[in-house]
Structures are given as C-alpha cells and as structure tokens.
C-alpha cells in the first residue's frame, strides 16, 4: 500500500491529472467571455452579470469547504493528484469512492487494503474514468437536443416555461431531501432547520436587499449547527 501511494502521489501523476482540470477552467472562462458577448442581446447589464458571478462565488463557499474536507479524506486512499482531478471534474466524492471500490472488487481485492497493488489501483483509476465518461459523453452528444425538447414543451409560453423550471427545481430538491427525511436524525434536523431559516432570511431580505447574496450560506450554517446540537 505504501508503494502504491508513493506512485499515486508522484509528480508524474500530478502532471497527467492537470489537463482535465485545466479544461474545466478554460471551459468556464470561455463561457464567461461568451456571456459578456451575449449580454446586450438579452438586455442584461454589466452590473447584473458581476452580481450573478459574485453570488455564485459567495454561495459556493460553504459547500466547497465541505468538498475540501471530504477531499482530504479521499487523498489518503487514492493519493492527492487523483483526488484533485476527480473532485475538480464530474465526480462527487461518494461517486468516485464507489467507482474506485468497484474497481478493486473486480480484481477481488479490498479497496485500499491488503493486496491493493499498483495493478489494482490501475483498475480503480480506469473505473473512475470510464464512469465519468458516461456523463461527459451523453451530455456532449445530446445536450443540445434537450434544448429542442424544451422549446417544444414550452411552446413559446414564457409563463409556463418559468413554472416548468420552478417545478423541476422543487422536484429535484424534493427528491434530494427525501433521503434525509425518512428517519429523524442529524440530517433530518439540518434539512428542516435549513428550510425554515431560508424562508425567514428571504423574507428579511425583502427589507434588506443587501443580505440576499448571503442568505443560502447563512441558512446552511444554521442548519448545520442545529444538526450538531441535536
């Protein structure tokens, strides 16, 4: 295992993990530039664009701290460069861990345990890669077809399109919450407190628009600490 981690943490692996991370960065920079090109065509001001960018940054701080902590755990099993690569693109930590474990399973070895050789690690890497490609490939090939579907379903009724996106959002988050609402536990408390705080904060933000950018971050912290006290 020590020898495996030595290879997994080698400079060479850093260099081979970097290109895909760089692509993720280049992609957002190019879209950023494209948004500035398109802004006039949809009557958006520069101020609104930077406000959106800032809000995205502020809102992401809490979840990114969580990813940071999870990643440190992942580094000890798959090495720093792979953890960095897999958490910069495509994967969330549970997905990547599952894929890496299934790779070891296919070799009949316990993930990160006795007999986890370089060859088993190679299968773990392969499994994480081929799994990620599933999403990349389908989105790359078919996402623009979904736009056609959306336009057909929307039928030019902008009001209905708005309700459709809201309904989709409520549906997705209804599902994401449902797994935490099956039993009364820490996550249950976090979800309920998070929801109640967010509703209160958004009402407060109507009078104090300045705090709107921070509402989700604050609601997250309140939910988190309520769960700790539980």
């Amino acid at each position, binding site marked *: 295992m020590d020898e495996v981690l030595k290879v997994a943490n080698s400079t060479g692996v850093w260099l081979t993990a970097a290109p895909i991370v760089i692509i993720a960065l280049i*992609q957002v920079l190019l879209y950023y530039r494209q948004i500035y090109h398109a802004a006039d065509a949809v009557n958006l001001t520069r101020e609104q664009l930077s406000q959106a960018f800032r809000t995205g940054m502020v809102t992401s701080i809490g979840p990114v701290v969580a990813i940071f902590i999870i990643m440190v755990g992942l580094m000890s099993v798959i090495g720093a460069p792979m953890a960095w690569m897999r958490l*910069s693109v*495509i994967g969330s930590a549970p997905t990547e861990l599952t894929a890496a474990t299934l790779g070891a399973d296919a070799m009949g070895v316990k993930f990160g345990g006795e007999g986890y050789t370089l060859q088993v690690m190679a299968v773990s890497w392969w499994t994480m890669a081929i799994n990620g490609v599933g999403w990349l490939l389908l989105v790359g090939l078919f996402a623009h077809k979904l736009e056609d579907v959306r336009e057909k379903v929307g039928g030019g009724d902008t009001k209905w399109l708005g*309700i459709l996106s809201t309904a989709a959002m409520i549906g997705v*988050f209804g599902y994401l919450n449902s797994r935490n609402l099956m039993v009364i536990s820490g996550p249950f408390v976090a979800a309920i407190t998070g929801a109640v705080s967010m509703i209160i904060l958004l009402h407060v933000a109507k009078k104090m628009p300045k705090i709107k950018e921070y*509402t989700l971050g604050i609601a997250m912290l309140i*939910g*988190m600490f309520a769960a700790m006290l539980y």
Partner: protein
Amino acid sequence: MAAEQINEQKYREVWTTPVIRLGISTMLLACVLSFIPLIYLYMVHGILPPFSASLTAWGLVASVFGAFYIVEPISYYPILGLAGTYISFLSGNISNLRLPCSAMAQEVVGVEEGTKQAEIIGTMGIIGSVVVNLVGVTLAAFVGAWLIGIFPAFVADAFRKFTAPAIFGAVFGQFAMRQPKLAPFALVIPLSLLYFKAPIWLVILASVFGTIAISRIFYKAKIIH
C-alpha cells in the same frame, strides 16, 4: 426587459450556437483526457489494468450509475439550461453546488424564471461556483492535511455530514415559497417511492417529472400562475 424584445436570430448567433460548439468540444476533449493518468501508468511503470477485470469493473460501475448518465442530464436540464448543463456535468457536484448557485444568482439579480436572462444569469452563478471550487480543491491538495489538523474535529465532522442536507433543505424552502402548492407533491412522491424501495434513478425521474406534470395540470386549471 421583456423577453419578446430579444431578437431570436441574434440570440442564436451570440449565444446558442457558440455555446453548443464550445460544449461539445470541451466535453469530448475531457473524455479523452480522463484516461491520461492510465496511459502514464503504463508508459512509466509498465502497469496495465487487466482486460477482463476492466470489463467486469465497467459492468459493475455501469450497473450502479448507468441510469444516472441519462436520467440526471434530462432531469436537471430545465433548471440548468444549455451552457449550465455543459459546465455542471464537466465540473460535477451538481446538487450541492451548481444548482443552488444557479438558483441564488437568479434570485439576487431578480430575473424571470425560464427566460433567456434567467439562463444566462444562472450560468454566471455556476461559473462563479466553479472558480471557487477549483481554488478550494487545489488548496486541499496542497495544504489540506495541515489545515484539517488545526480545524476542531467536530466542526470538520459537521461540514462532512450536514452541509448537503442543510443546503438541500434551504433550496427547497426557497422554491417552496414560490410555488407552495407544488411543494407537498415534490416530497410525497419521493418519500412514498423510497418507502417502497424503488430504484433511485426512478425516484429522481418521478419526483421531477411528476412535479412538472402536476404543475402543468395546476397551471391549466389556473390554480397556480
């Protein structure tokens, strides 16, 4: 600010067409780049994953996640839009990071849901989150172990266990405020399916498209508007 003032032709030229071109090329390039570490392992250490085990592992992982390759892009599309979908599926962490950041950006700027402005503002919020995400994981790679050492254990633990549930609750609260009549359905559908041990991919599909179907019925009946 009216959506119908937007010149469709121009919009396609400055947005849709370049977005698709950029999306397809970056996604396919990322597919290829995913395998570079494996090529390195072979070139430098002479290690190749055995063929049959690789096929087995592929089969295993596809049986666990395969349905999600299709279900997730379809379910998230109405929220993320085209550019948002390309970025989110390359950068990952969709439910805990991209969706909330897209929603908050739209909330703060105050754009009308489902419009072209909403799509672009949401995309901008996602871009902001990707930048912070990349900085965060790069820091974790270099100073993570040391930082975790000075973090009180119970705080790190709370972040690990409770950030996702708290965010999911908060975003649900945010949208339940907009359409309170839809919120109960969005919880009852997945809870009952989970109770009957339905497969997760089905639970996602049913939650999203069940809620959309109910919203359509309510919209037609003028119960919501």
